[in-house]
């Protein structure tokens, strides 16, 4: 599946270059359901969600806790597979994939940004950014080059050899964004990226997402803060495992 035509982008393509807005769907969910079973009790966390997100969109997914928001994020991030329904990510059907293929799909198609940054404390910023590239089997020289480019893009070109402990929260999240960009993924998936940041750093990181959006990246942001969601061009509300609303807003960058 890794060699399916049209799904694998070339290594020479630099992050955020040459991608056009609104052509191919990056995410295509068709009646996706996810059921959890605890003993004999079944719980349907997602009860039939259909959703299309096209290339270059900046989408915020909102919902209260228990709404199925996290489950949806796990499925979108290929961390989990739906119980039923179809999920095509950048043209690939990931709903039937096994663990190994999912890991590869995550590696190639998705750049994660987490609430808790999830940087490895023992590694420098550059080596943290290199991590997904090393899992992709990219050689050391290319990896270093791509990591430096990604760090420059998030404004940390002079911090490549700093460890996370030597950086501020906002800078750490910027490193995490650089890590998400390094593989030039089809989708940047951010899970509460500003949840652990003060207002200055929040503005800083959100500005970065605006820049990514402006440069043509597809960004999906999961949040419960209306202020954060307001930056996106499209806001989707989840409630009780169903799409409650899906509205195109003005957004900042549009």
């Amino acid at each position, binding site marked *: 599946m890794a060699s399916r035509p049209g799904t694998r982008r070339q290594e020479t393509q630099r992050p955020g270059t040459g991608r056009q807005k609104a052509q191919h769907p990056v995410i295509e969910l068709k009646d996706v359901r996810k059921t959890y079973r605890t003993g004999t009790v079944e719980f349907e966390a997602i009860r039939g969600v259909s959703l299309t997100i096209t290339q270059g969109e900046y989408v915020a997914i909102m919902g209260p806790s228990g709404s199925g928001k996290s489950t949806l994020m796990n499925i979108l991030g290929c961390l989990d597979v739906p119980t039923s329904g179809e999920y095509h990510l950048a043209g690939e059907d990931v709903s039937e994939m096994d663990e190994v293929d999912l890991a590869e799909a995550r590696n190639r198609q998705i750049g994660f940004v987490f609430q808790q940054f*999830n940087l490895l404390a023992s590694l420098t910023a550059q080596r943290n950014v290199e991590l997904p590239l*090393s899992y992709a*089997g990219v050689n050391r020289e290319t990896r270093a080059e791509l990591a430096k480019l990604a760090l420059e893009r998030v404004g940390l070109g002079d911090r490549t050899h700093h460890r996370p402990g030597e950086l501020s929260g906002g800078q750490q999240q910027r490193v995490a964004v650089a*890590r998400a960009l390094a593989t030039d993924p089809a989708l940047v998936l951010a899970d509460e990226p500003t949840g652990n940041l003060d207002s200055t750093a929040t503005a800083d990181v959100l500005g970065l997402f605006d820049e990514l959006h402006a440069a043509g990246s597809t960004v999906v942001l999961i949040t419960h803060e209306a202020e954060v969601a307001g930056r996106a061009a499209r806001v989707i509300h989840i409630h009780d495992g169903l799409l409650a609303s899906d509205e195109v807003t003005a957004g900042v960058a549009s």
Partner: protein
Amino acid sequence: MRWGDILRSAWDAIRTHKLRSILTSLGILIGIAAVVLTVGLGQGAQKKVNDQLAALGGNLLIVSPGSSTSGGIRGGFGSSTTLTTADADALSSKTAAPDIANVAPVSSSASEELDNGSTNWTTTVVGTTSDWLTVRGRALSTGRFVDAADEKQASAVIVLGSDTASELFGPLDPVGQSVTISSVPYEVIGVLTSAGSDSTTNLDDQAIVPISTAQQRLVGGTSRTSVADIYVKATKDSRLSAAYQEANSILAYRHSVTSGSSTDFTITTQQSVISTTSSVSGTLTNLLIGIACLSLIVGGIGVMNIMLVSVKERTREIGLRKALGGTPAIIRRQFLSEASILGLTGGLLGVGVGIAAAEILPHFMSNPVAISVPWILLAIAVAIAIGVGFGVYPASRAAKLSPIDALRSE
């Protein structure tokens, strides 16, 4: 992910937790060092036995008077002094004993003071025949050995051990010089090459005279024809038991032995003495190796323990690595590499400590330690195998973690 990167990330993880890694390796280190050292001790003991065997000749029979198998009978004159030079001559018969190549009777040893002018040195003097050299597998560094003419004439000639010669003559060639024993001058006719020492005696500090000379001049008294031991060398190793039978029947006939209880001599083979010693030391060595292996297993459990803690503690990291594209196989490899690096480090250091101990130990105790390269390589391989073996379970636990749960863990 490339192997280089997997090893690098394993090394990073080990470096991050320095103290923990050192302590974990320490368990392996102690185990491997103990194995290397005990094997070294065992092999050293074996080597010593083999050296003795080679020095004495593997096809050697020792006929001693009396029925006791202990060596203590050796110096005692009296009722059990039943062997004579005539017995030795009878054993030399090619027709009666075709499988016996050489026979060397040895007189009871006497501790005598040897004088060279103002220099004197007390050593053990024994009388024997020309075959002694062959039978004991010794050689001369200079001069000649006691010959048949010396025996016949009971000449006042003497052959010195290398240490004895240097004590008396220093660097000078002693051949042609004379030493006096109880005011009687003896001409030095040869010096033995160095043979080292066995467990009880220094083989290089002794003096040899013709057996007749010893019997007439040094021992005196009534036991002029008696000998302390007769060394018998078989024609070859495989004929040793035949030689044993021949010697036994010749002596039984000569001593009119009719039943087992009236046997007044004992024939021991060097082999039997040595195999007893080596089987005892072998048992001890095996016991020690067993204990060392137990400590290796304990070390391995230490690795497993730490790896399990490590997996637990780094759950988030594992989740992250999986989210970024780490497949279960790669995660497993990373943790296995970590465990085997710990094992390898412990193993290498353990071999180092073992070798160092093997160098130091002989200064404090008499046991020799032989370090052999194949065993060291095996020890290192075992150390890695222990790392991998005890790392499999923790690594599989890491590989099986669900990325969602792992990322959510605190």
